[in-house]
């Protein structure tokens, strides 16, 4: 049995990928979690200039999920290339997430990463709900999506994953624009724009006021979008949203995802990565599958 997958030219030893946001700049968890369990880990989104991020509080615990409003805090591409990239030594592939306020920002960040060793793919974040410029404003507009992906494609020849927002109204057009502009795969999806209000203080709980919903409440929405796009978009999909167990991950692959990402679950169950991989192996062994491809997309039939 092999868990190997290939996603738009990106070869992974298994379909489990650490989602951008919860895995720092690659190696923060390395001391407590065995990263060799993963096919790849994705960095926090890196932008052209350093970003302070949003005022605290930056996270709300909903009990069944969470809302975050980090605001893309990161030290910028110069720091990442000059001080971080060469020090990242992890036993899985590294994918770098990039973001920007403008098409030019994305282009420059991609050009700075071009030719650098140790990067298996770029994830282009056009779906962050927590910034006032860029982010989700690109990912809900097919023309803007096309411009960003085209600019990045012109600078770099490693696989590009376009990470989309969970907005059913426009996702097919945005997916088509990303594919047309040269994306190799789609990440479906980012967090869902959301808010939580403190009824005593009578104001939003987050310093940035609104945030992005993640965890189990997002799963049926993201799964629906993967299911819809897998049937129509003709481009490999990485399923993202509320995956906590092997059953969750298998659902996404049955809906057509070639790989899946886990993020929020790690703040809850440290054993989740090993449990998920073991569960997928068991599912495949019980049914005699030798490869993920033998059951991927079966729910689409």
């Amino acid at each position, binding site marked *: 049995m092999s868990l190997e997958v290939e996603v738009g030219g990106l070869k992974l030893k298994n379909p489990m990928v650490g989602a951008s*946001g*919860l*895995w*720092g700049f690659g190696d*923060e*968890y390395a*001391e*407590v*979690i065995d990263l060799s369990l993963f096919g790849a880990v994705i960095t*926090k989104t890196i932008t052209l200039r*350093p970003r*302070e*991020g949003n*005022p*605290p*509080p*930056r*996270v*709300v*615990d*909903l*009990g*069944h*999920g*969470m809302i*975050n409003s*980090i605001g893309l*805090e990161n030290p910028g591409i110069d720091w990442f290339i000059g001080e971080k990239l060469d020090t990242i030594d992890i036993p899985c592939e590294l994918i770098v997430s990039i973001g920007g306020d403008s098409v030019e920002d994305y282009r420059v960040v991609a050009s700075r990463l071009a030719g650098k060793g140790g990067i298996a793919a770029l994830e282009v974040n056009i779906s962050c709900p927590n910034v006032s410029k860029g982010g989700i404003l690109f990912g809900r507009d097919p023309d803007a999506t096309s411009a960003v992906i085209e600019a990045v494609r012109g600078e770099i020849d490693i696989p590009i994953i376009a990470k989309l927002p969970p907005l059913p109204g426009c996702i097919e057009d945005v997916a088509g624009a990303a594919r047309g502009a040269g994306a190799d795969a789609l990440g479906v999806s980012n967090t869902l724009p959301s808010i939580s209000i403190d009824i005593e203080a009578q104001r939003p709980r987050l*310093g940035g006021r609104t945030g992005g919903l993640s*965890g189990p409440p997002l799963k049926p929405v993201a799964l629906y979008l993967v299911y819809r796009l897998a049937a129509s978009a003709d481009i490999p999909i990485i399923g993202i949203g509320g995956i906590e167990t092997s059953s969750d991950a298998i659902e996404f692959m049955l809906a057509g995802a070639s790989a899946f990402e886990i993020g*929020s679950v*790690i*703040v*809850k*169950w*440290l*054993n989740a990565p090993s449990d998920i991989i073991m569960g997928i192996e068991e599912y495949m062994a019980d049914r005699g599958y030798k490869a993920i491809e033998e059951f991927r997309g079966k729910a689409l039939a």
Partner: protein
Amino acid sequence: MKYCIRAAILENERIGDSYYLMKLDVGRMASDCNPGEFIHLRSLAADWPFLRRPFSIYSSDGEGTIEIVYKVVGKATSLMSDAIPGDVFDVMGPLGRPFNLGAGASRVIAVGGGVGIPPLVFFCRRYAAALDEMHLIVGAKTSAEIIVPVSLIVEGVRVTYYTEDGSKGEEGIVTDGLGPALEEAAGGGLEVIACGPRGMLAEVARAARHKGVKCQVSVEEIMACGVGACLSCAVPGAGGGYLHACKDGPVFDSEAIDWERWACE
């Protein structure tokens, strides 16, 4: 070294109005725990909350068990107080930056309020014997909220109590005691450490700065990952931008924090 384990509860006892002491079987982790560090935990049995919660370490026997003291403030800690011996928690730790005395430190004033007292007691146990003077000033609303029997636990430590209703020690708030203590202790080798609510820490930092005394504060912030990856637990830094309580702290040099900005956020 950080550990990521499943730890069984050995004891979970009510020790005050809404305060509990939880003893955990953590194996080798116990030998790596230092005062000021925290653990991050979540019940494996409960569906609620979503995030692990950070708790300062109150004691470690160095061999296999540690203790934390917590106050029931919401649903997560309420569910935690229902845990019984044998229940298993997901535990990561020890995490963060501990209290770290300068090379010339010989005398320490520790200021603690409410649930901020336990990590200072751990500090006293670890370092008091090596110091010339250790003065612990503890404060609470009432005597019932002075949650650890400080005087019984820490030998060789001078303990001063402040309660808002005067039911134990002096009547007033804990920072009332810091000014006189700093006056009395003026001289070389003096450092201040503190743990408690944000307003209290700001006042301690201000008083220490006024006297030119090195001061470390242990802060509490809403946190998600605990290891510096998600950047949720932001604390405004004196140099601009944000520090992060889980990795840069929870113990900070008081001069590293932008207190004015933090008071507004």
